[in-house]
């Protein structure tokens, strides 16, 4: 795994995570296992050396999740027929033309800006300095007149919020209704 893979995941999978999770809830009825399944998917995708042949990150995301779920269904032994039926119907989803969607640079930029803008006050300032102005943690602390320790805490707090936001987001960066 290298920086290129991380960047690829950020550009091609994260924007679709909210959508993918909603699908997972619909077909899987696995709310309690949702985070596990998503983490498992990222782990598998991140372990792949070669992502260059994947032209459609969103469809690939679905494929990996489908495999994970099939494995889980098998392990559980009791087959949930209703889930499997919906499961099969999934093929329709990723063959559709809209599956070719990839965010343009401008859309990605706007999505990222909206994410940072959604953070509470000082958190937002910290992320603005770290990410928009690309300042180091030490420089950020100096500019804001706070300790580095506080900056690190804000980064952690902001990341927790953004990880939740990503989970509830539409591909165009809009928060879903009723999202946290």
């Amino acid at each position: 795994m290298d920086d290129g893979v991380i960047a690829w995941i950020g550009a091609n999978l994260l924007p679709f995570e909210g959508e993918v999770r909603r699908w997972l809830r619909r077909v899987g009825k696995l709310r309690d296992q949702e985070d596990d399944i998503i983490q498992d998917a990222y782990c598998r995708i991140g372990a792949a050396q070669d992502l260059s042949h994947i032209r459609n990150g969103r469809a690939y995301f679905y494929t990996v999740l489908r495999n994970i779920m099939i494995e889980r269904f098998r392990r559980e032994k009791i087959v949930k027929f209703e889930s499997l039926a919906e499961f099969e119907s999934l093929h329709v989803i990723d063959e559709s033309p809209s599956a070719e969607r990839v965010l343009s640079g401008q859309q990605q930029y706007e999505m990222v800006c909206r994410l940072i803008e959604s953070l509470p006050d000082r958190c937002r300032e910290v992320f603005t300095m770290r990410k928009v102005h690309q300042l180091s943690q030490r420089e950020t602390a100096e500019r804001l007149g706070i300790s580095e320790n506080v900056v690190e805490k804000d980064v952690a707090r902001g990341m927790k919020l953004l990880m939740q936001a990503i989970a509830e987001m539409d591909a165009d960066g809009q928060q879903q209704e009723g999202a946290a």
Partner: protein
Amino acid sequence: MTPDPAMTIDEIAAEWLARMVSGNASPEDRANLAAWLEADSRHKGAYMRAMALWQMLNGAAQNPAVAPPLPRGWAHQRFTRRWMIGGGAAIAASAAAVLLLRPYVLDEPQIFQTGRGEVREFTLADGSHIVLDSQSRVDVTMRRDARNVALVEGMGWFHVAKDKTRPFTVSANGARFVAVGTAFSVSREGGTKIVVSEGIVRMTAADHDRAIDLHRNETATIDPAGGLKLARLSDDAMSRQMAWREGSVGLDGETLREAAESFNRYNRMQIVVADQALADKRVVGWFSRNDPLGFSTAAATMLDAKVERQGETIRLTKK
């Protein structure tokens, strides 16, 4: 860092991420993180997700020349855009911890990018030069034993400062190009393409085990399906390939559609080829990148077509 056991995996991953990008991670931190990652594949996935998010947020660092105004509510101070990010993640950990962690440690990359119509040269800390084509971006990570450049968007030409102890690797679409001291360009539009202008570059395509050495004037194209094509270029063809660095577009039998796309990358004024058969016609020549109208007029004369201009759009149609 000792994670609070009441936290979810995602929350712990966020704490680790914050520590690792702080620039203050200790060898002990790195060893503890490695142990945590090894303990459970879900930990790896959550941390990977956190790293991808942190890196994605770098997308907010737009070149101010092309960025729209910041949305309301943003921090008011404006700083001069700094292309070089200082220090960041110096690695001073014990060798064992580093090896264990290597795949998961995120060294914060420096980001270099250009907006539409902008071709720009950047100098890296090691003395290497990068010229980025319009609407391109590279993420550069300098390590003690490696110089890694991820071509995230567009096209770049790399003039690599000699340093045998730190190979200079450009990765694009999963393919890797390694140079010690040499010059070459890589583009990632519609497949990955490399052109070597000096020295030797060792290429490893994503699904090929064997590395291939490319020499001066040689080019390789990897199509999206993984197909590999090698070719030798004449000096003339070579200059056309490198023309973009001097503000020109060098066309060497590209289709009119491809040529229009090249101009459209640089200019607000967009060329639209309305006719399918016309779009497949091939064109040759040198044109100034900033003159889409001049190119369209010339192409129309060559191909017996008609040029219409409406506002920011140039339409090429059959006569």
